[in-house]
């Protein structure tokens, strides 16, 4: 596979997740988002306090998709989705990071199937505090990042293709 092929495959994989994030947060949290262009060479997002990861496996590919939030942005999304303003980020509130990723994955999965990527069932894991450090795979074959900007701040979506 050439570098161009890898890049093309990455974009084919990633674009349904970008649409999925715009739809999931836009409809369920009623927050208007603007997505940046995907970048492949980047440093890990800064200021992240909560994240969720879903590991997807198909016949040929092993991919992690990660959505990560600074606390203020996350709390706004929670408020928009659930209609309550949380005082602290307890386990029930943190669960929301997993549900956001569930919806993004669900939205993306149907489109991915039409593009030849058939991933099975997967469940998100939520990371916060010390556990954030262990979220990323040790080695990567390819990676992409998109930032989603809103009036309330920014959150991030990363796609990591594993060797």
């Amino acid at each position: 596979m050439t570098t161009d092929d890898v890049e093309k495959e990455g974009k084919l994989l990633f674009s349904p997740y970008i649409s999925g994030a715009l739809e999931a947060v836009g409809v369920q949290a009623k927050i208007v988002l603007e997505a940046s262009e995907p970048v492949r060479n980047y440093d890990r997002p800064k200021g992240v306090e909560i994240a969720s990861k879903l590991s997807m496996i198909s016949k040929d590919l092993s991919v992690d998709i990660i959505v990560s939030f600074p606390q203020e942005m996350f709390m706004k999304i929670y408020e928009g989705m659930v209609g309550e303003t949380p005082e602290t980020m307890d386990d029930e509130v943190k669960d929301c990071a997993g549900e956001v990723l569930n919806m993004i994955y669900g939205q993306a999965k149907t489109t991915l199937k039409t593009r030849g990527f058939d991933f099975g069932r997967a469940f998100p894991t939520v990371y916060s505090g010390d556990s954030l450090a262990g979220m990323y795979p040790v080695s990567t074959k390819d990676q992409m990042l998109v930032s989603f900007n809103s009036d309330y701040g920014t959150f991030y979506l990363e796609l990591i293709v594993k060797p």
Partner: protein
Amino acid sequence: MFDPSIKLLVVDDMATMRRIVIKSCMELGFESFVEAPDGAIAIERLEENPDVGLIICDWNMPNVTGIEFLKKVRTNDQLAKIPFVLLTAESEVSQVKEALEAGVDNYIVKPFTVDILKRKLQDTYKKVNS
């Protein structure tokens, strides 16, 4: 039209989605809810609450999935007639077909608005009562 005085069972492994469903249903006038985090506990909740009149259940759950729970409900004489709405993050045709074959009354694709939920519940009751 649906009857918001009935008791609603909300089944989802994610607490956030249970809260979203309950909040949305409260906006439609529903007041009485029971919750379960998976299909196995949902069966227990039904046994404890024989007055449940509507089930809204997630598809993708660990342990007993939404479709497995639906099949258990539909093969139990005492529960078989309870309207059952499946909540799914996917709109894949094969999944919807499988749910319809298993006896689901309707399905809602996440994310959803209160208006979508209202329309789906109206359609469900129209179908159940016809």
